[in-house]
């Protein structure tokens, strides 16, 4: 078997992971909140994508901005309605709150969509093309491209826009930012909304690539937490590197020693955390984000 093919699958998978993990790490970087409901946000977006696609027959990729916006609004509302009240109690309470949100969302989705797998199947969902002898599936390719676009957009937004700078300032020093007129609550709700927005975009792609049902959230949140810990909590570049590491290691291990695939990634997390307790880019990138 061609190792290059396996690595190509790994890179594409890593791109998907990067898109999905970026929101979690952004939220942590700004709010110090581990959003364990990100998996349920993803599934929420995926199931709504399925619903709209099956009712209207729309090209699902057209729903990327729609679901992104919808999840931004939902994320913003969750922060303003729930998190802002609990955040002063500390990170433990926010994790429990978001667990509650995740479980509640799963229950609602269960009632609305039923407990069945849903798949969005546009004509290209099983299609692929070749670069030389390497097969590139279209859905994964599209996900990779969208991951680059979304992550690039977030990066530019954070660095170039006033709101992005305000958000970074608030992440670095809430009190200091407040002194120059930046509202911590507004910055935090913006960050939470953007994090949820990435789940909205990712959910559309998820529905095209994998069958989804409400409990699928558990599969994803576990991976995403692993990625942001390895990359350095709060670091978007770290999350991208960790996503690639997970994607490629998972792919290679799956092809050659499938039974040991999880050990490679989680073993790597253990080893790296022993030497870098803040993850691969934890400190450095948090400085970058806050610079």
């Amino acid at each position, binding site marked *: 078997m061609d190792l290059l093919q396996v690595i190509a699958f790994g890179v594409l998978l890593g791109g998907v992971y990067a898109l999905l993990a970026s929101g979690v790490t952004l939220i942590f970087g700004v709010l110090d909140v581990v959003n364990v409901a990100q998996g349920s946000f993803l599934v929420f977006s995926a199931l709504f994508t399925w619903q709209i696609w099956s009712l209207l027959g729309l090209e699902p990729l057209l729903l990327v901005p729609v679901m992104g916006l919808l999840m931004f609004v939902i994320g913003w509302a969750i922060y303003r309605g729930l998190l802002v009240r609990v955040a002063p109690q500390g990170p433990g309470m926010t*994790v429990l709150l978001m667990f509650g949100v995740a479980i509640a969302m799963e229950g609602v989705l269960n009632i609305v969509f039923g*407990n069945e797998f849903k798949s969005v199947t546009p004509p290209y969902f099983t299609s692929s093309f070749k670069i030389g002898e390497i*097969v590139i599936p279209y859905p994964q390719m599209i996900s990779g491209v969208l991951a680059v676009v979304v992550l690039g957009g977030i990066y530019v937004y954070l660095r170039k826009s006033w709101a992005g700078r305000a958000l970074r300032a608030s992440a670095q020093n809430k009190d200091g930012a407040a002194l120059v007129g930046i509202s911590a609550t507004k910055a935090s709700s913006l960050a939470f909304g953007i994090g949820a927005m990435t789940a909205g975009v990712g959910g559309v792609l998820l529905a095209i690539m994998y069958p989804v049902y409400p409990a699928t959230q*558990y599969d994803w949140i576990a*991976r*995403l937490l692993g990625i942001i810990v390895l990359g350095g909590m709060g670091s978007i570049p770290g999350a991208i590197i960790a996503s690639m590491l997970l994607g490629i290691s*998972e792919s290679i291990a799956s092809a050659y020693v499938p039974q040991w*695939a999880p050990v490679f990634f*989680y073993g790597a997390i253990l080893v790296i955390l022993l030497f870098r307790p803040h993850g691969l880019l934890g400190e450095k990138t948090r400085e970058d984000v806050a610079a």
Partner: protein
Amino acid sequence: MSNSRIRKGRRGRVSAAVASLAVAGLVLTACSSGDGDDTASDSQDSTESSETQEEAADDSAAEESTTEESGGMGDMCGDDTIRIGISLPLTGDFSQPGQEAQRGYDVWAELTNNAGGLLGRPVELVVLDDASSQEQVVTDYNNLISQEKVPLLLGTFSSLLNFPASTVAENNEMVLIAPAGGSPKIFEPEPKFYFFAQQATAPDQANPFVNMIASLPDDQKPKTAAYVSMDDPFALPVIESMQEQLEAAGVETVYTGIYPEGTTNLQPQAAAIAAQEPDLIAQGSVFEDGISLAKSMVQIGYSPDFMFQTTAPSFGAQYVEGVGEGNENGVFFAVSWSEKAPTEGNAEFVAEYQAQNGEGLVPSEDSANAYVAAEVLQTAVEAVGDCDNPAIADWLRANSVDTILGELSWDDIGRPQGDFLLAQWQNGTVEIVAPEVATTNGGELIVPKPGWQ
């Protein structure tokens, strides 16, 4: 064959801080969903609505009343309503088959009550949610036995959950008839009270397919095969058994792979398998992994002459949607039940299922298997004439039961002694192609498998 949707908890291993918080959250969540309010309220309801077995035994008036109503039978069933305890994965990873199983149990309860009940008494199902947790399922069955004091039990869903549940049943000498849970590991302790209510245990699920291969002309038989399976207590033994039997029949193995539970992306394995160009691909799948392998094969452009998958193809429309319409054509799988089966009571089961859940809705195999577990319990209780669990177990070991799956019988440790059905997706519908007596299309096969669409 939907016997083990084993998608075990796949929580991340994250940093110590995140992990500890996450574990705390999960524990709280599990407690609140399975062992908290629901259980408490159930217990309260139980206390208010019925006496316990012991109380009933001491209550001569109640005994006389019961004896009078049931013609001298059923004293150990408690007062009036017979309550049957069930734990099911209604939430969490196995919630889909768990909820399907509940529908099957509900259909049985409704039909039984409409027909005069069990031993002439109404039946009531006491269902607790185990949240797909091995720990919670033990708590649930202990609660059902010691607090709810139900006189009868029915099994939960999947080998993973029925394994710990069976130990609780054994310790309390209560019969546990399981709709799913045919992993050989469950039978290793040689249980006396556990009975698997399908035709055969996991390794025997491969038999109809192997027999079908053996019946083909030599020029149509596969020469090489790839075997890949989730490390699942039900799926893996099926594929291991198939590999052993086909190797003995001269089919060369060119690939073997086992992947962990929870794996949903099989693109790398698909590439590895396609590189070997096997005539046959046999996969021990649950659902997402089965979809992923088939889709990846389509994307890579390799179509084997034979494809067998456990469980995933039995998901009906969900499978067809997942792999893409037309790509299911020719895929083989083993099943326990067919809505077309002419078995006694099958039409009534389908009709009541549709009455409860929606006209035109085809019951899932999981629902049918739960219905069968209850049918078996009903037959045994009526034969014994009481909720005497040791007597029920003895009766089941010595007798056979007619069910909508056909006739079921068990050996001394509760293993069924029949044969599964072999099904194949043929032009958008599922046909039973073996054994001959159960075929729905005269046994016609689509061989080799058509190319991907």
